[in-house]
Each structure stands twice: as structure tokens, then as C-alpha cells.
């Protein structure tokens, strides 16, 4: 396995975020190579060969996504960088945005060149105000040196890239809700199809990629697709930024090859459990990913293995739960969160998440009744697969997962005298 790492600078925080530091570390060489020596088709081909899978949650290959945008259109095409990072447990993109913003700018530039896009936005969650300022300062540096603007590197290629701040809404991480929000509206997801690649921002063809996904692009262009697939797994290459939080000794972001086991991530890299605590469960890919038990730690962290285990890699946010924590308490946070964040557009999600919260809050306050667990399963099943956007599934899956893996404990909690 190759030793090269894409995000080491951001994680170490060494060198700083300035354009000088980035150039000194070899920055913008990949973009110069793409714009100066390659055709857009060759760039697209390289990213397709690398099979770079989306780092935001769905794991969809970025090259395929780019390929769906029509080459010929009479409308302006757009690129949106999804920096909404709202999935609870997730904080990895903050490191890239705050410590290595030029890596993201360079990746965005290469993606825009590959798809023939001249206008792009970074949609950043509203709570990251201080980080948005840092990113804006980095953009100003890039404009100053003609790494962005009407004539990038003197190549004739133009790219306008701007920051757009959200205002506190989980659903705006869903790509069509993000587009609505960027247009100045409520974040109500759109019916698909049409997909954003054909009808996206302002009705024009649009690519939407996660921050970490785009930050992987310069490495692929500079070193080739084989370098990327050599790290990680052949079908799911590269490294991932695993954000580990919860009851571990060293919470933080760890850049590790795709396919590293959960056990390695938690016990080798994150320092194991906090003193006196034992591992009870792990949420492997952000709050919406179904929970795993302590006996499932040898799973390789890649998109396909997690799906086979009934969960998902999602955003790679590993939340480690210890034996002091009642599972009902985890369920309570899950239930409150999704009820709070449902946009209200689809009835099953709006009402289902509200009813799930009511039942769980009653259970948590000691008013559980026999049959509550079955009722929760029935409610969650009534949300799953019945909504316009994936949030219905995101709300239902963790509830069903907790019931499946911890039913006896939950039932014990409801039968408390």
C-alpha cells in the first residue's frame, strides 16, 4: 500500500493555510498539469479510472457524476461544493476548509475544467462562519494570483468561485435542497428526476460534490489513477478522513486507507476507549448510519462492506459508544434530531419523525409501555422509502438499526417500573 497521503497537511496543521505554504508543498501543480497539458476528457477519464467515490455520504463515483452533465448546452453550467457538513458526528471537511483551503480550491478548479464549468459556489454551513472567512481569504489569494478568475494560469480558462453561507439546516446537505437554498429559498428537496446534472442550479446542468471528494482530485491528476487505487481498495480507492468521536482516548480526524477496519481505527489510531469504559456500539458513518455492535469491529471501512453489514460508510464519522451509555439515550438524540430537521415537505417524514420523537421522549422519561418498541419499528418503517429525498431513510434507518441490534435493552427500558 502506498504511503502517500492527501490530507496530511490539513491534519497536522503544519505549514498554515496560506497560498505560499500550499505552493511550497507542491500545490497547484496538479491544476497546472490539467489545464496546461491535458484535455478535459483526459481529466474526466483519469477520475473515472480512479473510481473516486463521493465522501459526503452516498459514495457515488465522482467521475460518473461529472460524466452525466451534457457536453453541449445553451445554459451556463454550475459546480456546487457541498460544505454543509451537517451529519452529526462529522467534522472532517472543517479540517480541509480551515487548514488546507487551497487543496479544495485546486480540486474544484480541476473538476470545473473537466466538465467545462465557469461558475462555482461553496455552500458552507452557517455555523462555520469563522471558517467561511478563512476560505474567503484563501479565495482572495487565489484570485490575486490568477488561480481563479477570467484567465486561470493564463490558459484562457475562466472560473468564478464564491462562498455561500447556509443558515442552520441539516436538509440543505441534500443536494437538491442545497440548490434551492442557493437560489434563496427554503431548503425543500426537489423531486428527482430530473437530476441536477441536467436540471440543477437556476435550471442549468449542475455538479455537486463534497469537499473531501474534490480535495482528492489534485492527487489523482498529479499521481495518476493507479496511485489512488493502490491506496485503499481497487473498487473503493484512496484514503478517507475518518472523524472519530465519543468515548475514545484520542478523538480526532485520521486519514487512513479505505478498508481499514473499525477495530484499527478505534484501538490503534484513536487510542482505544477512555479509561474505565468498554465499547458497546459504534455508529460507523454519521448519525444516519445504522449502529453496529461491539462484535462487528472487524469490518473493513469501505462503502460495499458496510452496506453488506446493513449499515453505510456515509461520511466516515465514527461515533464510539461506551457501556455506561443507555441505548435509549442514543435513540433519544437520534429521534430529536430528525424531528427537528425534517423540512416538513413530505407527510411521512414530517409526521413520522414527530411521532417517533414523542414515543422515545415518553420512554426516556420513564413512561414506556409494552409494545412501544414495535410501535417505533412500525413508525420508522412508515417513513423509510416513502419520501422525496433520502432524509426519510436517514431518519428511519438508525431507529430500525437500534431496535434490531439492541431490542432486549430497549424493551427492558420500557418495562421499568
Amino acid at each position, binding site marked *: 500500500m502506498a504511503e502517500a497521503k492527501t490530507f496530511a497537511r490539513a491534519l497536522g496543521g503544519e505549514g498554515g493555510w496560506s497560498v505560499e505554504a500550499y505552493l511550497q508543498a507542491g500545490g497547484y501543480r496538479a491544476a497546472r498539469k490539467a489545464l496546461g497539458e491535458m484535455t478535459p476528457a483526459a481529466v474526466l477519464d483519469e477520475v473515472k479510472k480512479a473510481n473516486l467515490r463521493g465522501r459526503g455520504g452516498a459514495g457515488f463515483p465522482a467521475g460518473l457524476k461529472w460524466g452525466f452533465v451534457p457536453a453541449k448546452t445553451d445554459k451556463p453550467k454550475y459546480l456546487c461544493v457541498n460544505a454543509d457538513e451537517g451529519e*452529526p458526528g462529522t467534522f472532517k471537511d472543517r479540517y480541509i476548509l480551515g487548514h488546507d483551503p487551497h487543496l479544495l480550491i485546486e480540486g474544484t478548479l480541476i473538476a470545473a475544467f473537466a466538465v467545462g464549468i465557469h461558475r462555482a459556489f461553496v455552500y458552507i454551513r452557517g455555523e462555520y462562519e469563522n471558517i467561511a472567512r478563512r476560505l474567503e481569504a484563501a479565495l482572495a489569494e487565489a484570485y490575486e494570483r490568477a488561480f481563479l478568475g477570467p484567465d486561470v494560469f493564463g490558459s484562457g480558462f475562466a472560473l468564478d468561485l464564491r462562498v455561500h453561507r447556509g443558515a442552520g*439546516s441539516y436538509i440543505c446537505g441534500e443536494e437538491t435542497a442545497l440548490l434551492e437554498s442557493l437560489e434563496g*429559498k427554503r431548503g425543500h428537496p426537489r423531486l428527482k428526476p430530473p437530476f441536477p446534472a441536467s436540471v440543477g442550479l437556476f435550471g442549468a446542468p449542475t455538479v455537486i460534490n463534497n469537499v473531501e471528494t474534490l480535495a482528492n482530485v489534485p492527487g489523482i491528476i498529479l499521481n495518476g489513477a493507479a496511485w489512488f487505487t493502490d491506496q485503499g481498495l481497487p473498487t473503493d480507492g484512496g484514503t478517507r478522513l475518518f472523524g472519530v468521536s465519543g468515548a475514545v482516548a484520542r478523538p480526532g480526524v485520521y486519514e487512513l486507507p479505505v478498508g481499514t477496519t473499525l477495530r484499527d481505527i478505534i484501538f490503534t489510531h484513536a487510542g482505544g476507549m477512555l479509561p474505565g469504559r468498554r465499547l458497546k456500539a459504534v455508529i460507523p458513518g454519521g448519525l444516519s448510519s445504522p449502529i453496529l455492535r461491539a462484535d462487528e469491529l472487524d469490518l473493513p471501512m469501505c462503502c460495499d462492506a458496510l452496506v453488506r453489514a446493513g449499515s453505510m460508510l456515509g461520511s466516515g464519522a465514527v461515533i464510539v459508544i461506551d457501556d455506561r451509555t443507555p441505548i435509549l*439515550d442514543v435513540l433519544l*438524540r437520534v429521534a430529536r434530531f430528525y424531528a427537528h430537521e425534517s423540512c416538513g415537505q413530505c407527510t411521512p417524514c414530517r409526521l413520522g419523525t414527530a411521532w417517533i420523537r414523542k414515543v422515545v421522549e415518553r420512554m426516556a422519561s420513564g413512561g414506556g409501555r409494552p409494545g412501544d418498541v414495535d410501535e417505533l419499528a412500525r413508525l420508522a418503517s412508515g417513513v423509510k422509502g416513502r419520501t422525496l429525498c433520502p432524509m426519510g431513510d436517514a431518519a428511519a434507518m438508525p431507529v430500525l438499526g437500534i431496535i434490531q441490534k439492541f431490542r432486549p435493552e430497549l424493551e427492558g427500558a420500557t418495562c421499568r417500573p
Partner: protein
Amino acid sequence: MKAVFSADLRRRVEDLAAKYPSKSAALLPVLHLVQAESGFIGPDEEESVAALLGTTPLEVREVVTFYTMFRRKPVGRYHLQVCRNVSCSLLGGDAILDYVRKKLGLNVGETSADGRFTLNTVECLGACEQAPCLMVNFDHYGNLTENRVDEILGELA
């Protein structure tokens, strides 16, 4: 009645609007600016923003009420938001919230009589490696303990 915005704010709104293919797309950034100047976004501010961006007060209100960061009422000078999601709760987020409540003598959602503090809970702030965490206005504070909370509040006082 329309709120009267400063000349500086009006200019910044116009600059923002010019950066988007359609003026109304600047609504979120414009509302952030208005809230920073006025402290909140009431009906008067909605009307003025609508006029500046060529949209309707109703459309502005839809947006203001949809996004949790937009406020329809003033908050204290220091707006404390304590995370209540899983990563923070695993490391004592609830106890921190209780401590802040007692220390400030405020329930969640309340503002102190002197207008200095407002206390709220918030969903995941994206700083889970520093759990438990809270935000004061736009500044993040992590790895909270009771002593650390004392220090933070002491600095604000």
C-alpha cells in the same frame, strides 16, 4: 413599516445581489448581514429586504422561519448554544448544559434580564472531536468542563 438600513448595509446588499445570476438568490447572505446589523429579522426587516431583492415579504418570511440561525426576536449580547447531539452527550454534554443553566439562572430559550446572555441548545456543531462543545455567537469552545465554562463566562462578563 419598512426598516431603515444604513447606507453601508444597502451598498453591501447591492454588491451581494450583483454576484448571483438572480438577485433573490442573495437572500440568505443578505439576511445574515441584516441580522448582524439589526440583531434579528422582524416584519419591518423582511419588508425592506424584499424590496431590495425584488421579492415579496412572504417569501422572505418563509426563509427566515425555515433556517434555525435566523432569529425573529432579539437575543442577548452573548448567545450561548450548547450541543445536545450524540457525540457531546456521550462525554457529558447534558451535565454541561445543566451547569450553564444553573450558573446563568436561565432555562433553555431564555434571555437574562440585563440582556447579556441567551441560552439555547443546538444540534451538532461539527466539532465532535472537542466534545462536549458550545458556541458563543460564532466562536466555538470545546472540551468543556465546569471549570472551563467558568473561565469562558468569566471572559464574557
